[in-house]
């Protein structure tokens, strides 16, 4: 079976076939023999050409010897949708990628801001983090209030 994998934004292709108790993987002209065994719960062990790897599957990630992979969710459409509404629609969106508490809102609607100007101070885990304007422009919308918590990936401020 042909499989393509995205690795560091570079796509590449491998061929995988069942072989004895495991798999034969052909990739860039080389052959690898792999044996996977589920250990317990989220854990498995993978032996590839004799090398042993501890593999952990969580809901949306894979860890190989403790090193993390991102894995796209089952419904790529839904994810695209999420992205388009939040992250990609508006280049002027000030988005928090972590949950936290809005400590201070430094601008109000109608304000003119410059690129990199701090607009919101977010507190999480006892540290203050300043979020800056991604571009120069006018504050169109302020979606948050001081001392209220926000989830990750929320659009806090919109600038146009």
């Amino acid at each position, binding site marked *: *079976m042909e*499989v*393509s*994998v*995205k*690795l*560091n*934004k*570079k796509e590449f292709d*491998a061929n*995988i076939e069942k072989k004895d108790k495991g*798999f034969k*993987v052909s*990739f*860039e002209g*080389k052959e*690898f023999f*792999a044996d996977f065994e589920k250990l317990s*719960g*989220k*854990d498995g062990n*993978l032996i*590839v*050409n004799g*090398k*042993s*790897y501890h*593999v*952990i*599957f*969580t*809901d*949306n990630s*894979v*860890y*190989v*010897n*403790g*090193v*993390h*992979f*991102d*894995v*796209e*969710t*089952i419904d*790529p459409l839904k994810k695209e949708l999420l992205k388009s509404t939040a992250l990609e629609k508006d280049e002027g969106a000030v988005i928090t990628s*972590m*949950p*936290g*508490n809005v*400590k201070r809102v430094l601008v109000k609607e109608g304000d003119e801001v410059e690129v990199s100007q701090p607009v919101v*101070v977010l*507190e*999480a*885990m*006892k*540290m*203050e*983090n300043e979020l800056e304007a991604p571009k120069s422009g006018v504050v169109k919308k302020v979606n948050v209030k001081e001392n209220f918590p926000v989830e990750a990936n929320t659009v806090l401020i919109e600038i146009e």
Partner: protein
Amino acid sequence: MFKKVLIANRGEIAVRVIRTLREMGIKSVAVFSDIDRKSLHVNLADEAYPLGGKTSAESYLVMEKIIDVAKKCGAEAIHPGYGFLSENVKFAKMCEDNDIVFIGPPPEAISSMGDKVTARRIMEKAGVPIIPGLEKEGLSEEEALDFAKKVGFPVMIKASAGGGGKGMRKVNNEKDFAKFFRQAKSEALSSFGDDRVYIEKFLEEPRHIEIQILGDKHGNVIYLGERECSVQRRHQKVIEESPSPFIDEEMRRKMGETAVKAAKAVGYFNAGTVEFLVDKYKNFYFLEMNTRLQVEHPVTEWVTGIDLVEYMIKVAAGEKLDLKQEDIVLKGHAIECRIYAEDPDKNFMPSPGKIERLITPSGPGVRDDSGVFEGAEVSLYYDPMISKLTVFHRNREMAIKRMLRALDEYIVAGIKTNIDFHKRVLTHPAFVEGRYDTTFIDNNIDSLLEKDVKNEDVAVIAALIEYYSKGNKKVKRATCTSSRWKDYAKNCWTI
């Protein structure tokens, strides 16, 4: 000795104190916020009582509630851990007024040492060198800026009531001054309930080296060697070690004796830490004194063989130190890595969430002081430090290798951590050779975050994951996070 002790703290340090209390045959009492009902310290303690509230201000900082619990459950003493009320003189006095032993120094020592400005003055008087600075009541932004211009950038703005990197900012130029001055004041207010700050000249190539001391109520004070804490980011310590690769026996003795002098100057008892900045000519300057147990105390425990929490409790109960200065012999080398719930690839942004899988290292010379468990929710309300990993080996070279081995075994899934980042620091030539100061991480951040994909096994694994995932509804397409592959290839058993 006490029969029951309340721990006015949470997370790993509460667990740490519970462990020693149990060894001493003393009942431990945990307190908890609503957020922390399911936390490890509650589960491990003998008794546990709710404080209510979510934020620290609503829970762990409410002195009356804590005193109330202690009285109701019959705790004779309170261990404050670090942070929260550990250096709060009002709380120490409130304990005294309620006939509860505060496991810490006398209130006077807290107030004189806890206030950084007062502490500087005391040290100056005692003849301990201090860094040029400006400290005055109601220090204004303008005055501070004037001072900065006079001594020259960079300068440090520091919370007067501060400690632990909170309310502290390094300012490199005039442009950033106003912003950082305000940030420091604001953080100081939210962390310590006190927005006073002072300003100091920033030393070039400074090392942060601190001396652990231990004093009893009978006037005996000893020092327990130093800790090298120069691996810092945003004034938060990241890796600590003892002994410091930078200082020798003679300098250790000099700094130790200075620290003891400082402690005696304020009638100190309890465990405590005198922090110094050391410049490249090995001049040392008093930085501040922490009148409490320090996060990084395990490295000292490894090399001295002494349980500092046990001695804090014994001293608080009035026992005389059964250790003399000559009993303290440093043996071997210890290193601590603080495990933070943060994402180094996204500017070390905090990464709260559920720990879906947790594997902690063990075996020879490894100690994990954790505040979490598999399935635990790391809350955004509190500190992002989830654990402290400490190792011991007979020398520094082997200790570094042991730490790398332990970090390889350490797996935290579900949230991001700085485990991989630690591996890069520990393999960086400057760290390996012991040539580093507090600017180390900032100056090497690019190489410490370097990205690359090399090993072809990794591609095979990715392909297999993709293949397996066909049968797994939850997993569809694997893309690896950009930054980790290099480390993977470098450190993770595949070379």
